[in-house]
C-alpha cells in the first residue's frame, strides 16, 4: 500500500479551484449549425486523442421523487444503442485499449473518450452512437437499477461520504444539489423507462453540449469529425439552470451519526456562492489562505502541524452553476473531535476579524497563478478545463483574465469576502463517529441531534 503524506488536495481543492493564468496558445472555438460548441486544441506530441463533452443534463434537473434519474441516464448510455449491445460497446472500446465513459454530476453529464489516434474514427462512432441513439433496454435498466442500489449501500461504509451526504442535504435544503446524484434507496426503484427516455429527449441536445477534442488532431480534422459524428443531432430548446439562493440557518444545526469508528468524520459549513458570483476571486483567495492552500493553509497549520489532530484537513467553496456551499472537513480520533471543531471555528472567526497578512495574500496569488501550467499539462486536463470554462461562460480570454482578477484582490477584499461568505455562528455540523467517545458539544451549547 502506498501512503501519501497528503492526498486531500484533490478532494477539497478541486471544487474550489480549477483556474489560472497562462496562455494555452490557439484554442479553436467553433459552433456547429445545430449548436454544439466545439473546442479544439491540437497537441501532436503523442498519437492519442482525448474527447470530453459536458452536457447541461445533470442531477439539478432530476424531478422531485426521481433523484438519480440523470445518473441512470448517463450510466445507461454505454449499455446499448439501437445498433450495438452493451457487450458490443465494451468489447469494441476495450479491444483497442481505449476508454469510453459517461457519468453525471450535479450540473452536467460528462461523456469522455480516450483512444489512440489510429482508432479515432471508431472512437467517435461509438461516442456518437451512445450519445444520440441509446436504446434504454428494459433489462439494462433493471441491471443498472440493481447496480446503483448496491453502490449506494456500499457507500455507507465510507464515513466521509456518509457525512457529506447528510451535510449536503441539510445545507442545500430542498434544492436538488442537496441530494446525491446517484439517487436514493427510496427513489431508484421508482424511476421508469419513460422517465429515462424523456430525460434523454429533453436534455441531451446539441445546443446544450460542449465538446473539447485535444490531442493529435488538427482543427480541420476535428471539425470534420464533429460534423460527421455530431452534425445530425437535432436541436431543441433545453431549460437553463436557474440561479438559487439558499437560506442561512438562524442557529447552528448539529447532526451526529453514531457508528463504530475510531475517528469522528467532521464536516462543518454553510451555503456558499455560485461560480458566477462577482466576488468569486476574493472568496477563492480567502479560502486558499483559510484552508484550501496545500500545506500552508491556516487550518492545516493549526489542526495538523501544531496539534497533530488530523491527517487531512481543509476547506472548500464548492461553486456550482446555480449556487454553492462552503465546508471545512477533517477526520480526527473521536476524543479530539470537539477540539478540532473549536479550532476550525476559531480560524473561520479569525479571518473575519483581522486582515490577512500582506505576505499571506502574496503567497496565495503566487501559488495560484504560478501553478497554472500544472493544471494544463496533459490532454485530459486541457479538455476538461476547456469545457469547464465554456460551461461557466468564463470566455476563452479567461486564461489571461484570471491572473488579472486575482492580482486585483486586496487584503480588504479578502476581509470583506470572509465577512460576507463565512458564517461561524450559523453553520451546519455533521459528525459521523462514535458518539459516546466524541461527545460532541458546542461551546455555545447548540442542541445536538443524533441520528
Amino acid at each position, binding site marked *: *500500500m502506498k501512503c*501519501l503524506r497528503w492526498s486531500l488536495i484533490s478532494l477539497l481543492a478541486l471544487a474550489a479551484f480549477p483556474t489560472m493564468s497562462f496562455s494555452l496558445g490557439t484554442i479553436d472555438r467553433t459552433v456547429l449549425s445545430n449548436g454544439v460548441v466545439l473546442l479544439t486544441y491540437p497537441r501532436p506530441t503523442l498519437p492519442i486523442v482525448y474527447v470530453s463533452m459536458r452536457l447541461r443534463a445533470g442531477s439539478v434537473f432530476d424531478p422531485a421523487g426521481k433523484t438519480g434519474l440523470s445518473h441512470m441516464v448517463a450510466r445507461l448510455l454505454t449499455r446499448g444503442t439501437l445498433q450495438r449491445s452493451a457487450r458490443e460497446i465494451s468489447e469494441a472500446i476495450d479491444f483497442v*485499449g481505449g476508454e469510453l465513459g459517461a457519468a453525471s454530476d450535479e450540473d452536467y453529464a460528462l461523456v469522455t473518450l480516450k483512444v489512440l489516434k489510429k482508432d479515432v474514427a471508431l472512437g467517435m462512432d461509438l461516442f456518437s452512437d451512445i450519445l444520440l441513439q441509446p436504446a434504454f433496454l428494459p433489462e439494462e435498466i433493471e441491471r443498472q437499477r440493481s447496480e446503483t442500489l448496491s453502490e449506494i449501500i456500499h457507500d455507507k461504509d465510507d464515513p466521509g461520504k456518509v457525512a457529506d451526504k447528510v451535510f449536503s442535504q441539510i445545507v442545500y435544503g430542498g434544492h436538488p444539489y442537496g441530494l446525491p446524484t446517484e439517487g436514493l434507496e427510496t427513489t431508484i426503484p421508482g424511476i421508469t423507462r419513460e422517465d429515462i427516455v424523456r430525460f434523454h429527449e429533453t436534455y441531451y441536445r446539441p445546443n446544450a453540449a460542449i465538446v473539447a477534442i485535444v490531442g493529435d488532431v488538427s482543427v480541420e480534422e476535428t471539425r470534420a469529425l464533429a460534423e460527421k459524428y455530431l452534425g445530425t443531432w437535432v436541436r431543441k430548446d433545453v431549460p437553463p439552470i436557474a440561479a438559487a439562493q439558499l437560506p442561512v440557518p438562524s442557529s447552528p444545526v448539529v447532526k451526529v451519526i453514531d457508528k463504530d469508528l475510531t475517528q469522528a468524520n467532521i464536516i462543518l459549513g454553510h451555503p456558499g456562492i455560485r461560480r458566477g458570483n462577482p466576488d468569486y476571486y476574493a472568496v477563492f483567495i480567502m479560502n486558499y489562505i483559510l484552508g484550501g492552500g*496545500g*500545506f500552508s493553509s491556516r487550518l492545516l497549520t493549526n489542526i495538523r502541524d501544531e496539534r497533530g489532530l488530523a491527517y487531512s484537513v481543509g476547506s472548500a467553496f464548492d461553486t456550482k452553476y446555480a449556487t454553492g456551499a462552503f465546508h471545512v472537513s477533517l477526520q480526527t480520533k473521536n476524543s479530539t473531535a470537539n477540539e478540532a471543531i473549536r479550532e476550525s471555528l476559531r480560524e473561520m472567526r479569525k479571518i473575519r476579524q483581522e486582515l490577512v497578512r500582506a505576505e499571506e495574500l502574496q503567497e496565495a496569488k503566487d501559488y495560484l497563478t504560478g501553478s*497554472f501550467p500544472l493544471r*494544463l499539462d*496533459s*490532454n485530459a486536463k486541457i479538455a476538461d478545463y476547456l469545457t469547464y470554462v465554456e460551461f461557466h461562460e468564463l470566455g476563452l480570454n479567461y486564461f489571461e483574465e484570471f491572473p488579472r482578477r486575482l492580482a486585483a484582490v486586496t487584503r480588504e477584499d479578502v476581509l470583506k469576502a470572509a465577512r460576507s461568505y463565512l458564517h461561524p455562528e450559523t453553520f451546519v455540523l455533521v459528525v459521523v463517529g462514535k458518539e459516546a467517545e466524541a461527545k460532541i458539544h458546542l461551546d455555545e451549547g447548540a442542541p445536538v441531534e443524533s441520528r
Partner: protein
Amino acid sequence: MRNLRRFTTVILGGLQLVMSLLTTEPVLAKNQEIKEFLLDNGLKVIILEDHSSPTATFQVWYKVGARNEVTGRTGISHLLEHMMFKGTQQHGKGEFSRIIARNGGNENAFTGKDYTAYFERFSSDRLALSVELESDRMANLLLDEREFQLERDVVKEERRLRTEDDPVATVVEEVYAAAYKVHPYGSPVIGWMSDLDAMTVEALRSYYKLYYSPNNSTVVLVGDVNAEEILPNIREHFGKIPRGPVPPKVLSKEPLQLGERRIHVKKEAQLPFLMVAYHVPNIGHPDEYALEVLEKIVSQGESSRLYRKFVYETQMASYVGGDYARVSADPTLFYFYGGLRPERKVEELERGILEEIERLKREPVNDQELEKAKNQIEAAFIFGRDSNFYQAMQIGILETIGVGYRALESFVPNIRKVTKEDLMRVARTYFTPENRTVGILIPEKKEKSSSGPGF
C-alpha cells in the same frame, strides 16, 4: 474497484525506443531521450527531456520502504517520510512547502513497500529550487523530538482514516499479513498501531543515517528541461553530500506456502467483501508477462471476464477485479477481489471466482481476448506518456527495485510474445489451492443501524 488498486502495481507506459519498434507511427516523440549520470558519491541521476508542456517533475527516490523494516519498527519508513517536511538547519519547519507553493509548485511524497519518494511539480523554470531543497534534506534533516511526537499523532490519524475505519482496507492488510509469514511484505507500509506508539526519534535518526544517502537514492527528472543545463547544478548541490553507509540487504525469503490460509474480519459494514490471493513471481521472472496479460483478461474494462460474469451477468457483485503487483523487489501477490451485492452470499462469489480461475487453467483464452489484452497494455503504455509525473514514477520505481528503467524498453515486445499456452501454464503453476490465501469481510450490523439515517 476503488480501494484496492495500488498506485504502484501497474507499470505501463514508456519510452521512445519501444514505441518506434512497435507501431506504424513514424516518430512518436522526437524530443524524448533518457540520459543517465552517476555522481562520485554514488547518486544516480536520470533525466528524460519531454517538451510537450512547460512543466517538469523532480523526484528523489530512496531505496527504503516497508521491505526494510524489522519487527517492532513497522511504519518507520513512512513516518520518516513525514518528518522530511519538518525542517533542516537552513530551512525551518514548513518552509519547504511554503517555498514550493510560492513558486507555483506542488509537492508531496509517498512510501511503498520498496521505496520512499519525494517530488515537486513545477513550471520548468523553477527546478533549481528542487535541487537546493532536496539536497538539503537528504543530508541535514533536523528530526526534532517535539515535531516527532506531533507527526506520529498525524500518522496515527492517517492509519485510522485509511485502515482502521475502512473494512475493505482492513481485509487487505490481514490478507498480506497471513500470506507473508517471514518476508516483511506482510507488514503494512503505514505500520502497526503498537509500533507507531513505540517509535522513538532516536530510531528515526539512525534509520535516516543508514538509508538516506546519495548512494542509496536516485534523482529522476522528467519534463521541459535541458540535461546539460541542470546537471552542473545537481552536481554542485548533491555532489557535496558524502557517500553514506551501505545499507543491509533484505535477506528474508518467503517459504513455499503448503496449504490454503483463510482469514475473517468481523467489522461493522454493510456487505461482505472477498479477496483471494496467490504468491507469484515479480518483475525479472520470465512469467511476469503472462501474469500481466492474465490480469488484463480477468480485470481490464467491462468486457473483462470478472466484470462480465459477476457484475454484468450474474449480478452477484458490485465490483470485482484482479491485481498483479508486478513491479516489486521481491515475489509478490496476484489477487482477485469482489464486493457483494445485497442478498448475495460471499460463498457463492468465492465459488464463482475459483471456477473462473480453474477455467484459466483448463481452457485456452480465445484469440480475440488475448489480442485485446495486449492492445490494452500497449495503449496504456502510450497514454502513460501524457504525464511527466507518471513517466518519472516508472523510471524511479524500476531503478529503486534494482531492475533499471531499461526494462521499459523490452516490456511491450515481451508482452506481445505471450501465448495462450503461457497463460494456462502460469495459471496452473501459481493459482493452486496450496498457494492461496483467502480473506473475507463478515459484516457486523449494529442493532441501532436499522433505525439509522437513510444514507
